[in-house]
């Protein structure tokens, strides 16, 4: 294939050739090339197959709106599908592949879809694959997915890093074209904090691809000079390769910086992409305008290109688009393409201008006014076009065609927060509405001339600075040369074309699809979009939406203003999942909370279970135990007979201080706390304002004005927030303060009949039952000098203590406990045994406190004080919360032979068939009880308190299980609490 590279010119570095491969072929380009420009320079016109019809496609644009040239770049975990070749900077060793073709790009079997195109028109998904529904999963969907699709993602791990960052500025300028550069420079010279983002590798925007001069130098040189000045200023941050993809409330912008996508070697110390959140006091959107394609038969053939893109390839990349070029236009701008082509010695066969000869624009070649291109010829590359001019059809041979259908200002970001675009009849385009904090500048504002854009950037920046009270620096607009105009007259499609005329190239939506949508009643633009899928591809219809609106408007006999646009939403261009996820992947997916006793548990062989963010020791296998039940049964039994130690550090812990702390606690707990003496702990029940139980735990009084509260693990943060709400909003007059100390204390439960003997060896005071009875609490020292807190509290029902020591000393103390307990048969126990012990004792957790229970449901009705006000008291008094037929806590045991009882199973009366009406409640917790030698369960049973002794049925519809159980009281072990005082 012959080289299309021109012998000189362009912003490429010819001293730095770059080798790359495309579909396995070795090709080469230069530093400064994109993959697209390098492919074109190598004479490659065919680069992909279309989505639905598998039509051959080439490179249509030179920027981020590219719908056709989607390729897969990279290998292994770095393989990235759907990369726009026009945005991929060429790097050494780049491996690129075409997509959506099989077995090869040139010979693609999927192209037979074109023969079936009558069946693939708009809405074909809905019509063809209606029924039977059972075939969807098995047949239709796999079929559609294989035939129609884009590139395939890799299954390999992404080896690269991503990160997120904040930036703050006075003025954010989006787009470093003519208007953006002058806006940024004006603000920068005024001393404002400026961020300038641009999606290209070099600042300059359209200046990089045009031959105009600015301040008597080449436009691209002027752009570089401005960028260099901005780079030296400490108040400016210039972010090239950065796309602002979204505008959010509070003038916050999302931007994606492609930090290393252009590099051959990835620096592991840097992220490959960086997601910016930019908080801008003011912003200028200088995002430019898209030049629209023209819609005529075969307008998608490789070799047909947007006229401005053709200039960019010619001027910036020194690539000739072909040997003989025609230009189809409805406006003046394309005449510049003719001029530039001729200046580089490329033959321009004809300019076909759809307008009558009224424009001032002219070309030094054959010009057909009032002419149309009606179709294109060629197989996988353009060979010729059919022209209709002066009532006659004519065919001419060309290998490239530039098309120019007028301008669409890029207003996407400005309309992402609900503002509706406004139709401008003169400009034949939608413009952004007035927005607070975001001003449009340059061609994004419908101002297309170079001099005007340069001037507009200055003006918009000065206005923004004025709003911020920053005195704008004086800035004279640069001088420019400019010849061609920018006017055009809308031509939505060429009605004389009979061949497929594409509106949306990426989703293969044609003029006739849109016509069909209108005829079938889907004429509303939002309906037409979904019925035809126009504008729904990865390019979001950047080039096609306005043509689609114009065509629908024509078909409905309305103006585009009446049709309106579809909704603009982030993201402006696709953003990788990696960038959105940022650092939150793999082991950083979420924080890991480890108890201060984690290392101790690990050393004792613990198996851990994730509980929220916590890793809790679940059981400690010993002696070749292979099943968790073996370990849990042994550990639980050992607590009942000897002594065990369990890590309970994950319980929420809150220090409460202040002269009003007693009154405060008396208000947040439904039971009395005002008279709790110093040195005592008390179990407390906290209600929500609506009267249901929120959380439970023990709170100990360590001094007159100092309490130590424990909460459940799950509600630790919630209770803290609740206490602050009560203190700050409900009772601001109370003098009380809180500090969360969950992570500051290592806390262990030492439980079992021999626990006192173990503790006695470690502490510095008498802990006999008289001196330190059940529910005692004290500051003391352990191991001689270490400050500690000891509580006489028990979750297992055995004689037990909880010992808290500073977190860093946790392991040391736990080791000492194990050592002291060795002669008493101490064993560590985990959350499984903990759960068995508390079920045996009938103690509740959030399995029972599930948001639907009140104290009486749990048999704690008498705890709710009659003598004081407390949070939830009023609503607890409601009739339904006092009703007799509420779900109430009971115990269950097998009525016949022992068998496994599962939590979640439902309860039925003995002979009642299973139905919602007959539902009597459900099992909340269940386990095998080593103490009793059979399975037991806790349940919430309708009228449960009155049904002890009754036989009912457990019903598990999922597993088809049904068997009888006996209702009993929830405390299976030591119901009269004799062990606690032993």
């Amino acid at each position: 294939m012959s080289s299309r590279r021109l012998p000189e010119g362009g912003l490429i570095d010819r001293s730095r050739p770059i080798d790359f491969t495309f579909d396995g072929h070795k090709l080469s380009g230069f530093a400064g090339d994109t993959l697209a420009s390098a492919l074109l320079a190598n004479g490659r016109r065919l680069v992909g197959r279309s989505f639905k019809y598998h039509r051959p496609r080439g490179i249509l644009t030179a920027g981020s709106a590219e719908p056709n040239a989607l390729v897969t770049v990279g290998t292994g975990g770095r393989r990235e599908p759907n990369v726009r070749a026009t945005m991929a900077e060429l790097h050494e060793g780049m491996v690129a592949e075409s997509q959506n073709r099989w077995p090869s790009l040139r010979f693609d079997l999927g192209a037979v879809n074109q023969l079936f195109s009558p069946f693939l028109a708009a809405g074909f998904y809905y019509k063809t694959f209606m029924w039977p529904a059972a075939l969807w999963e098995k047949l239709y969907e796999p079929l559609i997915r294989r035939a129609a699709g884009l590139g395939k993602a890799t299954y390999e791990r992404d080896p690269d890093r991503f990160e997120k960052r904040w930036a703050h500025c006075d003025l954010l300028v989006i787009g470093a074209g003519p208007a953006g550069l002058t806006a940024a420079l004006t603000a920068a010279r005024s001393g404002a904090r400026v961020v300038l983002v641009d999606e290209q590798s070099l600042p300059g925007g359209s200046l990089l691809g045009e031959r105009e001069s600015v301040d008597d130098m080449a436009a691209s040189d002027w752009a570089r000079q401005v960028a260099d000045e901005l780079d030296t200023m400490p108040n400016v941050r210039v972010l090239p390769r950065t796309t602002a993809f979204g505008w959010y409330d509070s003038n916050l912008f999302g931007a994606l910086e492609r930090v290393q996508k252009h590099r051959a070697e990835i620096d592991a110390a840097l992220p490959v992409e960086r997601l910016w959140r930019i908080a801008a006091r003011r912003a200028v959107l200088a995002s430019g305008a898209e030049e629209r394609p023209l819609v005529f038969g075969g307008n998608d053939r490789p070799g047909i290109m947007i006229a401005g893109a053709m200039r960019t390839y010619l001027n910036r990349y020194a690539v000739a688009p072909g040997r003989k070029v025609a230009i189809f236009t409805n406006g003046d701008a394309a005449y510049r393409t003719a001029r530039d082509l001729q200046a580089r010695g490329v033959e321009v066969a004809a300019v076909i201008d759809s307008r009558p000869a009224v424009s001032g624009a002219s070309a030094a070649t054959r010009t057909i006014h009032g002419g149309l291109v009606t179709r294109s010829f060629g197989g996988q590359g353009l060979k010729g076009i059919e022209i209709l001019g002066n009532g006659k059809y004519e065919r001419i041979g060309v290998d490239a065609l530039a098309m120019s259908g007028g301008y669409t200002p890029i207003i996407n970001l400005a309309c992402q927060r609900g503002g509706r675009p406004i139709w401008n009849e003169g400009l034949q385009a939608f413009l952004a509405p007035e927005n607070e904090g975001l001003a449009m500048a340059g061609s994004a504002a419908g101002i297309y001339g170079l001099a005007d854009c340069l001037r507009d950037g200055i003006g918009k920046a000065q206005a923004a600075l004025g709003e911020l009270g920053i005195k704008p620096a004086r800035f004279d607009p640069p001088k420019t040369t400019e010849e061609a105009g920018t006017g055009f007259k809308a031509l939505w499609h060429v009605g004389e074309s009979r061949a497929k005329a594409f509106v949306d190239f990426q989703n293969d939506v044609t003029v006739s699809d849109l016509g069909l949508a209108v005829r079938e009643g889907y004429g509303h633009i939002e309906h037409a979009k979904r019925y035809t899928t126009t504008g729904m591809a990865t390019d979001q219809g950047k080039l096609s939406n306005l043509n689609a609106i114009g065509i629908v408007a024509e078909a409905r006999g309305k103006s585009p203003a009446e049709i309106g646009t579809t909704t603009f939403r982030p993201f402006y261009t696709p953003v990788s999942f990696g960038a959105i996820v940022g650092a939150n992947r793999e082991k950083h997916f979420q924080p890991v909370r480890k108890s201060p006793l984690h290392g101790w548990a690990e050393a004792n062989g613990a198996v851990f279970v994730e509980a929220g963010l916590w890793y809790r020791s679940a059981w400690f296998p010993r002696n070749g135990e292979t099943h968790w039940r073996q370990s849990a049964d042994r550990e639980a039994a050992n607590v009942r007979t000897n002594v065990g130690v369990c890590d309970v550090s994950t319980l929420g812990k809150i220090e409460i201080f202040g002269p009003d702390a007693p009154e405060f606690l008396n208000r947040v707990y439904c039971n009395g706390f005002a008279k709790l003496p110093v040195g005592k702990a008390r179990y407390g029940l906290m209600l929500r304002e609506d009267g249901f139980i929120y959380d439970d735990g023990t709170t100990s009084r360590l001094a007159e004005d100092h309490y130590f509260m424990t909460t459940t693990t799950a509600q630790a943060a919630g209770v803290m927030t609740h206490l602050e709400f009560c203190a700050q909003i409900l009772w601001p007059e109370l003098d009380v303060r809180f500090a969360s100390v969950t992570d500051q204390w290592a806390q262990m439960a030492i439980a079992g009949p021999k626990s006192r003997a173990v503790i006695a060896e470690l502490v510095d005071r008498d802990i006999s039952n008289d001196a330190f009875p059940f529910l005692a609490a004290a500051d003391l020292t352990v191991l001689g000098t270490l400050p500690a807190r000891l509580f006489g509290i028990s979750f297992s029902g055995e004689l037990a203590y909880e010992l808290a020591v500073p977190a860093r000393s946790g392991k040391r103390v736990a080791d000492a406990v194990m050592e002291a307990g060795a002669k008493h048969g101490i064993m560590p126990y985990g959350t499984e045994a903990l759960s068995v012990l508390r079920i045996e004792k009938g103690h509740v957790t959030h399995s029972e406190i599930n948001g639907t229970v009140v104290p009486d449901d749990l048999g704690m009705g008498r705890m709710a004080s009659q003598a004081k006000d407390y949070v939830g008291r009023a609503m607890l008094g409601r009739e339904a919360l006092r009703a007799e037929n509420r779900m109430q806590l009971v115990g269950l045991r097998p009525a016949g032979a022992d068998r496994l009882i599962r939590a979640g199973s439902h309860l039925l009366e003995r002979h009642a068939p299973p139905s919602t009406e007959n539902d009597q409640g459900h099992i909340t917790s269940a386990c095998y009880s080593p103490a009793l030698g059979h399975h037991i369960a806790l349940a919430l049973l309708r009228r449960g308190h009155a049904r002890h002794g009754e036989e009912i049925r457990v019903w598990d519809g999922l597993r088809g299980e049904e068997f009888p159980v006996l209702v009993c009281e929830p405390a299976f072990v030591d119901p009269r609490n004799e062990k606690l005082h032993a």
Partner: protein
Amino acid sequence: MASLIPCPHCGMRPKEEFTIRGAVPDSRPAWGAPIDDPQWFSAVYLRTNPRGRLREHWYHGAGCGRWLIVERDNLSHAVHDVADARARALAGDRT
């Protein structure tokens, strides 16, 4: 919803640092009010859910740990006022 919230204690902060409890009730019975006070029902359950301005209780959990009253517009997403809730309560605004 606004992306940034001007906390009176911490300055402009991203909304992810806050948790929202919900709209501030129109009224709340005084502490110790009789349990059959009909205001209890409206204080706990009834919210007007206006289109436009509303006042909400926000907790700056990842910042100062203070409860705030955020007055914002759920249509325009503008934030009109952010105040310390305790200071408001002490000034007599306890809802």
